[in-house]
């Protein structure tokens, strides 16, 4: 993250596929030209040694052949290059090259050319040392305070410091507690070596101490077992910095005190000579290299730190002075004087990009990519906008976004229910207590005219019915192919279902990727849930259905329930449900009536439905079009209300259980918390039976949960019964008032909400809201009633009296000739939106009727939300 970039003064790329690391770059006047001009020396892991003397004509120039003074390939990888006074008898600078197992010192010299072709440079090997151990890095300096020459100290991969007094080997010492090598440097002020060990601490060893300690090689012979335990080597001082370090530099500039700089993996330290922290800085990036280069202000030192975010930061002590973008991640950074230009920043990347740059206010221009946008043609834009507005308007008006189903369907799903029950029942895990639970086979066929991708078939029946398998996933269907699956339906829960219908639905993608669905429904046979039985005379609930045709013998319409040998079944038929209850169907011999009777109101429903369906079917076969059923008796509202009360009571129970559970849970947590504090104490206090209490509460919670579960099961049964009874009531009302299909649909929508019943939103309040809405709108008597406002929030009522009152009133109004309709022509209609939901809002013309002053917009909220730290 920077505003500016480092300005390119001169750059080049070295070799191909070569690797470089920290030690591979060195800047010095290696050929002793005396002009004070630095040369750039680069060695690579491939063994190439190159020396550059950049002199671009103008900044940013390409490399010229004359800039490369020398390129030789040495036989071994170059780990580090250093320049110092390494040859005895002369104070001239020489080049030390560290290989894995060898140290070579070269003299670099140039011969002036006679013509314009330039100078000729060559290297000459002065001396070399073969190493016994694999080298890692080296440092040099006037060890022991010698004047005018530099000694070299090499650290090996296994922790030995080898000191070379120029042409001769002096001694080798093992570092104590060594595991992996860290950076190594020599401090001439204190005459000591400073490194960061694997124990994550900065350690300083005096040269004197090293020199007088037991010789590593000798000791190794005597104590071969312990390779790296130079116990006698005493460390001068240690500072625990708690992290590994990348590099160490020691500087002493005129204006500032001498300091040891350590670049850690996460922090940057400046230490005093005695190993105390002068200052430190937490870095919020991953650094890769650094160099303290000068002191601009008295008492402070400027440092360059490169990081893995390709940035070069300039710090004055801990204050960031400048940040510049680099084109690469530097592994090494140096400051050099090149071609009379002081303070050129030389950086080297690990793939060999060498750059000399200077800081400048050249913006690091971040080029935001172009947004894909069209050429703006305002006329076309307006036209398109109008078109879109029209579509939006249409869509909000019709409220039906889905296109009408095409007659020609691409994929057809059909379900075929076999007329007979399965010979061998397929029922699994049924909770019904009957001896045998029958099942019926349903065969579902999918026919596809086009390629259908990933077709999935879902079959669902209302609980307590269940299917043996409710989901099928097919491979992609080819055009004009079909798939068939077979499954069985059976009664699972121990109560009678409220519907005998099932749905199957196929979802698939057509080749263009648009998802589509196809569905169909099927009707299950009555035999699935009940069997023929002896008719019984007496019953609590009786219903009489009138027809306008002479009675039909049960032999014709219920062939599957009547045994043809028994004559008396022609007008009396008994049904025994699997769950145990019984229903009897009687046909009047003289009048055109049928009577259904049972001990339970809800059991009447399925039989009545079946009867009307079969009668209609029968007369349809006989081409008798004016057949109609009617109902004259009063609607059995009292019995219906009893069922509502039963269901409601269970809901109240559920609420009670929930409250108790939350109370116990609070208690449980409180005990837990107390126990936790006890256990956390250093001096354990007695538990004082808290554990017993905890266990007791736990048991209570479990018992309550069990009870709540049982209540839930009961509630489910009660709700199924309630649904059956509701179906019956709807049917009776429609027969009684001879309602049209539309009106029946409204009635069903009112009494049988599609929403799943939950504790928060139950059947009672939903139906109450719908019924009172109808009472307020199409069944209202006066304008006064219309003015009543909607109850804003649906919540569980305290009792059911209001609901009962409303239903009674509803039936009264219907009896008095009220018409159910939802049409918008009535002036009373308002756009009613259920709370919490968001209905589509019709776009009306701009008419400003109410101007509301002071309605506030919240302030523009969203600000910079997420910015990952750099």
């Amino acid at each position, binding site marked *: 993250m920077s505003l500016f970039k480092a300005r390119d003064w001169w750059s080049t790329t070295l070799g191909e596929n070569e690797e470089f690391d920290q030690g591979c770059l060195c800047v010095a006047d290696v050929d002793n030209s005396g002009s004070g001009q630095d040369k750039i020396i680069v060695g690579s892991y491939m063994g190439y040694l190159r020396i550059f003397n950049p002199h671009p004509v103008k900044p940013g120039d390409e490399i010229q052949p004359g800039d490369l003074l020398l390129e030789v390939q040495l036989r071994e990888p170059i780990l580090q290059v250093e320049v110092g006074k390494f040859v005895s008898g002369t104070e001239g600078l020489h080049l030390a090259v560290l290989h894995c197992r060898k140290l070579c010192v070269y003299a670099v010299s140039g011969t002036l050319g006679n013509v314009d072709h330039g100078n000729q440079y060559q290297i000459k090997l002065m001396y070399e040392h073969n190493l016994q151990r694999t080298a890692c890095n080296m440092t040099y300096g006037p060890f022991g305070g010698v004047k005018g020459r530099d000694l070299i100290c090499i650290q090996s991969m296994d922790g030995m410091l080898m000191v070379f007094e120029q042409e001769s080997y002096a001694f080798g010492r093992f570092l104590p507690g060594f595991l992996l090598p860290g950076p190594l440097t020599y401090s001439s002020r204190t005459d000591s070596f400073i490194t960061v060990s694997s124990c994550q601490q900065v350690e300083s060893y005096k040269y004197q101490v090293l020199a007088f300690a037991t010789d590593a090689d000798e000791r190794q012979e005597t104590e071969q077992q312990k390779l790296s335990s130079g116990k006698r080597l005493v460390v001068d001082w240690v500072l625990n910095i708690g992290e590994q370090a990348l590099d160490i530099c020691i500087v002493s500039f005129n204006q500032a005190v001498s300091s040891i700089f350590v670049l850690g993996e996460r922090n940057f330290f400046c230490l005093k000579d005695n190993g105390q922290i002068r200052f430190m800085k937490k870095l919020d990036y991953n650094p890769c290299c650094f160099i303290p280069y000068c002191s601009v202000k008295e008492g402070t030192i400027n440092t360059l730190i490169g990081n893995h975010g390709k940035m070069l930061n300039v710090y004055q002590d801990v204050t960031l002075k400048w940040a510049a973008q680099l084109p690469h991640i530097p592994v090494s950074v140096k400051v050099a004087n090149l071609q009379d230009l002081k303070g050129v920043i030389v950086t080297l990347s690990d793939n060999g990009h060498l750059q000399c740059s200077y800081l400048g206010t050249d913006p690091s221009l971040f080029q935001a990519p172009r947004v894909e946008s069209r050429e703006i043609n305002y006329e076309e834009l307006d036209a398109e906008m109008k078109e879109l507005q029209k579509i939006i308007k249409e869509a909000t008006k019709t409220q039906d976004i889905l296109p009408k189903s095409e007659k020609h369907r691409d994929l057809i799903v059909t379900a075929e229910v076999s007329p007979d029950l399965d010979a061998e029942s397929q029922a699994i895990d049924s909770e019904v207590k009957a001896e045998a639970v029958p099942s019926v086979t349903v065969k579902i066929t999918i026919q596809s005219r086009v390629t259908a991708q990933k077709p999935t078939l879902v079959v669902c029946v209302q609980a307590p019915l269940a299917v043996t398998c409710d989901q099928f996933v097919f491979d992609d269907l080819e055009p004009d192919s079909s798939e068939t699956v077979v499954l069985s339906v059976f009664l699972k829960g121990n109560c009678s279902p409220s519907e005998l219908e099932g749905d199957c639905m196929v979802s698939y993608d057509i080749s263009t990727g648009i998802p589509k669905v196809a569905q169909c429904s099927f009707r299950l046979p009555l035999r699935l849930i009940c069997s023929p039985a002896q008719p019984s005379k007496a019953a609590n609930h009786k219903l009489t259905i009138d027809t306008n045709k002479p009675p039909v013998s049960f032999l014709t319409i219920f062939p599957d329930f009547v045994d043809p040998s028994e004559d008396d079944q022609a007008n009396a038929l008994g049904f025994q449900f699997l769950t145990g209850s019984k229903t009897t169907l009687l046909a009047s011999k003289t009048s055109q009536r049928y009577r259904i009777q049972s001990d339970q109101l809800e059991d009447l429903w399925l039989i009545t439905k079946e009867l009307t369906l079969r009668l209609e079917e029968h007369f349809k076969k006989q081409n008798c079009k004016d057949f109609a059923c009617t109902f004259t008796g009063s609607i059995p509202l009292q019995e219906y209300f009893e069922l509502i009360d039963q269901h409601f009571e269970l809901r109240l129970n559920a609420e009670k259980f929930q409250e108790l559970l939350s109370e116990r849970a609070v208690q449980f947590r409180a005990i837990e918390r107390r126990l936790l504090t006890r256990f956390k104490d250093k001096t354990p206090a007695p538990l004082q039976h808290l554990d017993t209490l905890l266990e007791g509460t736990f048991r209570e919670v479990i018992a309550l949960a069990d009870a709540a579960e049982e209540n839930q099961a009961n509630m489910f049964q009660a709700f199924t019964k309630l649904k059956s009874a509701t179906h019956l009531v709807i049917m009776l009302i429609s027969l009684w008032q001879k309602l049209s299909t539309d009106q029946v649909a409204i009635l069903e929508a009112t009494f049988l909400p599609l929403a799943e019943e939950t504790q928060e939103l139950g059947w009672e309040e939903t139906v109450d809201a719908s019924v009172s809405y109808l009472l307020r709108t199409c069944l209202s008597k006066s304008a006064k009633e219309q003015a009543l406002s909607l109850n804003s929030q649906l919540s569980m009522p305290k009792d059911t009296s209001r609901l009962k009152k409303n239903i009674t009133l509803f039936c009264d109004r219907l009896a008095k000739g009220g018409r159910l309709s939802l049409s918008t022509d009535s002036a009373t209609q308002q756009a009613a939106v259920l709370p919490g939901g968001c209905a589509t809002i019709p776009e009306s013309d*701009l008419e400003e009727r109410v101007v509301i002053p002071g309605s506030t917009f919240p302030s523009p909220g969203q600000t910079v939300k997420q910015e990952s730290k750099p």
Partner: protein
Amino acid sequence: PGRRRCRGPGGRMGLEPLFQAWSYFRRRKFRQCSDLCSQLLERPPGEQAAWSLKMRALTEMVYVDEIDMDEEGIAEMMLDENSIAQVARPGTSLKVPGTGQGGGPSPAVRPVTQSGRPITGFVRPSTQSGRPSTMEQAIRTPRTALTARPITSASGRYMRLGTASILTNPDGPFINLSRLNFAKYAQKPKLAKALFEYIFHHENDVKNALDLAALATEHAQFKDWWWKVQIGKCYYRLGLYREAEKQFKSALKQQDMVDTILYLSKVYLRLDQPVTALNLFKQGLDRFPGEVSLICGIARIYEEMNDISLAADYYKDVLKQDNTHVEAIACIGSNHFYSDQPEIALRFYRRLLQMGVYNCQLFNNLGLCCFYAQQYDMTLSSFERALFLAENEEETADVWYNLGHVAVGIGDLNLAYQCFRLTLVNNNDYAEAYNNLAVLAMRKGHIEQARALLQTASSLAPHMYEPHFNFAILSEKVGDLQRSYTAAQKSEEAFPGHVDTQQLLKQLKEHFAML
């Protein structure tokens, strides 16, 4: 002579493998480093150096600074018995955001989060936490898709990081922790530290890490501050804040370190003692003057305590030390924006853009600033870019919402309406959009619709006062004074200083008195 390079990229010219791995590690090429170490370890004898190097490489691959990790889950919030006072004095607790003190902005000017703090300019892990007071409330707190986070325990992110061990090592764990003899390793300080970091960061096994650290600190005769800090970190993760505090304090006595101060302040914040944390930071600044992370920590605390002007001052101090600090720039920018200086905010955001921050939020803010600074030409193109850069539907929703604002500002109500609708398409929980749609519906005279929308808005975001207030006004207009009164009361609860609400309440009270 023509140079010949016949070696392929893999042809290392006789480099020692361990040296090569060590070099890879230094250049943060951890994958190569770890592979090379694995090869080395296959050869007998398994060398300690390679083992340690591989451990460090694996750790660095998944390393996240522990200081930046801060997530508070329901379990931490509710089973927290560490806070000193249940009812803290104003200005000493983070639980109750101070109101009206220190010149905090009013919610009318700057939107607030669920816990009543002004929205910050920079999202950090801890800025979203609002502490509910009971478990029930915590569970029932209306949460949107964006803030659903606290439902599980705080270990969410740790768990995800824990799976890193599977990612980096598809063939099973590199080290089988259950077989390690910690006592043996604790006596080898050179190995133990790397091993600890591996267990803590890579394996995420706090318990074992703590065991190792306890043994190691004993072996070091309690003289190594580093081990104390590590034990403190373990305690912190285990929720033992008091114990962690002891360890950090003891470590600080031995050696002043920036990290230790930051860890200790984290403990104090968790203990709900922001003032102690502030003092600690200030002491830390005496020792390490100009340390950015410390100044930034102070600014964050002041921001959390609702003292925006002081926070801005400290953010400015941060910029004096490090003028590329994104968090400070963003926070100062948003502060200027909400204190009615969009031109200055614009400059800060532009600076971020120049620095290379390139995301949806920034362009969103730039767009808003441009609009309020009346640079209309840039507004729409900024939002266009923001939409282009949006990474998820929530971001898109934000942009559309702000576009809706712009549309309201230029009076194009149809466009505004459609923008708000698009907001809801992208994020169905956007309470502000519901509120504004309701206001538009009110203008069109769709009273019922407006009412339903306002109810939705207030149920989604009970902390906003706008829906309540609008509802009160709406009800008052249609003559439903009772509802107007209750809504106005809710509005006052959400924003006690709102003058319009107070006037409305006064008016209603007079009305009731007359009746």
